[in-house]
């Protein structure tokens, strides 16, 4: 039986590194995925996710356990991504996409609409377009959308990570979906967006 996150954290606090490695293995994909959708490229996402774990390693003694380890990791990753985006904006460098390794095995995207012409498989190009459209959203809107739709977190959890009220989360999510729908309308023809 595998140890719980709490047990692993306790073991880490005693100065052991193996339990920390287990925590990293458990959550690395989550941190990387969130960072990827927030910053828009895999190389930076990998760096940011590693930085998040380094921060956690150094601050394990501060973890009170009020929220889960995953939520804590999300919060740190989110903050690092926001710092990164602010810095990138300041440097006025353009977002680029640098895929590491081969593209992910992404599941087919199915649409629920009965009259939907895109029912069934949606081509890889469409997914790239959706990804690009998300990238065009302002950081505040993009982050709540990603946390809700991709990370599947509740309004309360998102509010805790982003540092705002659940009402603000709802409002941002509404605007994010509206803007994304507008952008995609021109891209995904026939979709009821």
């Amino acid at each position: 039986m595998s140890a719980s996150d709490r047990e692993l954290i306790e073991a880490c606090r005693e100065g052991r590194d193996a339990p920390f490695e287990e925590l990293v293995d458990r959550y690395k994909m989550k941190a990387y995925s969130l960072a990827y959708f927030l910053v828009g490229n895999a190389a930076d996402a990998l760096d940011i996710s590693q930085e998040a774990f380094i921060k956690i390693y150094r601050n394990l003694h501060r973890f009170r356990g009020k929220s889960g380890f995953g939520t804590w990791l999300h919060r740190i990753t989110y903050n690092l991504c926001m710092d990164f985006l602010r810095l990138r904006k300041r440097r006025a460098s353009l977002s680029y996409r640098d895929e590491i390794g081969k593209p992910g095995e992404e599941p087919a995207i199915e649409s629920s609409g009965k009259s939907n012409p895109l029912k069934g498989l949606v081509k890889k190009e469409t997914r790239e377009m959706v990804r690009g459209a998300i990238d065009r959203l302002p950081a505040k809107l993009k982050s709540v959308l990603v946390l809700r739709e991709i990370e599947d977190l509740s309004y309360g959890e998102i509010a805790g990570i982003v540092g705002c009220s659940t009402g603000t989360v709802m409002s941002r999510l509404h605007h994010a979906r509206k803007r994304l729908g507008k952008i995609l309308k021109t891209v995904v023809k026939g979709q009821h967006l």
Partner: protein
Amino acid sequence: MKCTRALRRIQAYFDGELPPGESTALEEHLRGCPSCSGELERLRDLSSLVKGLRAPSVNPELWDNYSAGVLRKARAAPGRRIPVRERAGSLRLLHPRLAYAAAAIFLVFIVAMMYHFNVVRRPAAGDAAPLTAQQRPIVERFEAGDLASSVMAFAPENDPVAIVWVFGCRIENGQDSGEGTIL
């Protein structure tokens, strides 16, 4: 339920965040309102497009070395984590105030030793010859009116320079304040 009210609740309903009572009322409205049910459909379509996205997979070699890399960087950079047990036993006594107090006690001890081994010039009984203004010691007399006051002086032999430390007393030149006077 009116459409304006229903539209405000559709997103929370779709995300599973609407309380059960309100959900039932909304579902009832949606059954008879094509416009609002169309809005729900729009949310579903958009969500299905976004939910299907995955971050590109990472080269397995990179993943294999990932956690080792995290640990290596965490150890290499400054601010290494100190295990809680180790930290609990560490010198929390090094609070600045305590450090200052310890330094003051040490200083008093050093000066006392200097007096004890006659490093500091003390006025001898036979040393009654009047001193010139330049030779006159800076500290001639000191009376501490309270226990908290103290004075320390260092005047090496054959050296016109003297160092005087005065702690916790009111200085009134030539006037006995009752607490301490330096002449």
